[in-house]
């Protein structure tokens, strides 16, 4: 279950591609949220079994977190928080992709760190994808 918000939809496309390649029989459902204009829907249709769009609303509300699935979310912090809350309530497996201002991008400068339950981690090198439980304080 792929959940993308705004420009957070961009990395989800490659994820959908990789997931489809690694298991052609896998079920992939994509939920895309936008403020005004939708994009990439057709591109996602190449890999996904379904693409649901939400314009102007809260895409997380469209997602059923009680399914036997792995959830991936990328988008604005409020969206990630909403997904985290839903994952808590349904005890779902959720991975979030974080965004931080970066300088070196390779893990050397420590400019992009976030607070995790295991101390500070670098979003560029240690992430950007984390198990949501690890980065509750960072979203």
């Amino acid at each position, binding site marked *: 279950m792929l959940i993308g918000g705004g420009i957070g939809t961009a990395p989800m496309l490659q994820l959908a591609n990789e997931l489809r390649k690694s298991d052609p029989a896998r079920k992939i459902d994509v939920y895309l949220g936008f403020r005004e204009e939708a994009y990439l829907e057709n591109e996602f249709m190449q890999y996904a079994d379904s693409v649901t769009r939400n314009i102007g609303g809260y895409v997380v509300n469209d997602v059923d977190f009680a399914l036997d699935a792995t959830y991936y979310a990328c988008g604005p912090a409020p969206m990630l928080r909403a997904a985290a809350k839903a994952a808590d309530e349904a005890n779902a497996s959720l991975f979030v992709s974080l965004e*931080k*201002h*970066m*300088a*070196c991008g*390779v*893990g*050397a*400068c*420590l*400019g*992009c*760190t976030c*607070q995790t339950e295991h*101390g*500070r981690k670098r979003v560029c*090198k240690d992430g950007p994808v984390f198990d949501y439980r690890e980065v509750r304080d960072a979203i």
Partner: protein
Amino acid sequence: MIAASGTFGFGHEYAEIMDVSRLGGISGKGLTLSGSAGNKGMRVYETPSGMLNSIGLENPGVRHFVESEAAYMRNLGPAVIANLGGHCEEDYLEGARLLNGADIDILELNISCPNVKAGGMAFGMLPQTAADITGKVKAVSKHPVMVKLSPNAPDLVAVARACESAGADALSLVNTFLGMAIDVKRKRAGFATV
């Protein structure tokens, strides 16, 4: 060509993507005696004319460097430069003593740190305080001491001359320029620490 302190970690990350042995030297991340978690919140901020950074000297501490990083850096090939900062004179001197036990080529003395015992004024702001800490570290350190100057000093040339007279083996120019960015939408400074 020396990789400047703070830009290169201790070499681990860049060693994966380039041949770091081509560098003349690597100045490691600035160390403090007890280490630091660094600043919370945003640490880099782009401005129309450049980039501000407020990392907060996140570092593993001098002891960790001596025990784990110095040997790794030596193996990379370039000259090994350990950058040492401090919050008070005692921290600098203890840090320098501990670094005597490490196989490094140069101790780069970061005097842009605020002296908590002098109202938070950076050691490197005035010629007298800069010379004082330079002389004291020089007396304790068995390694050559390269003093990294603060560009925010009112009279940088005087500070440079004072450090030279106090025995600095080299000068490194310069540490971070002071700057501030205002986020007009949120009506506050970009960084959490002003």
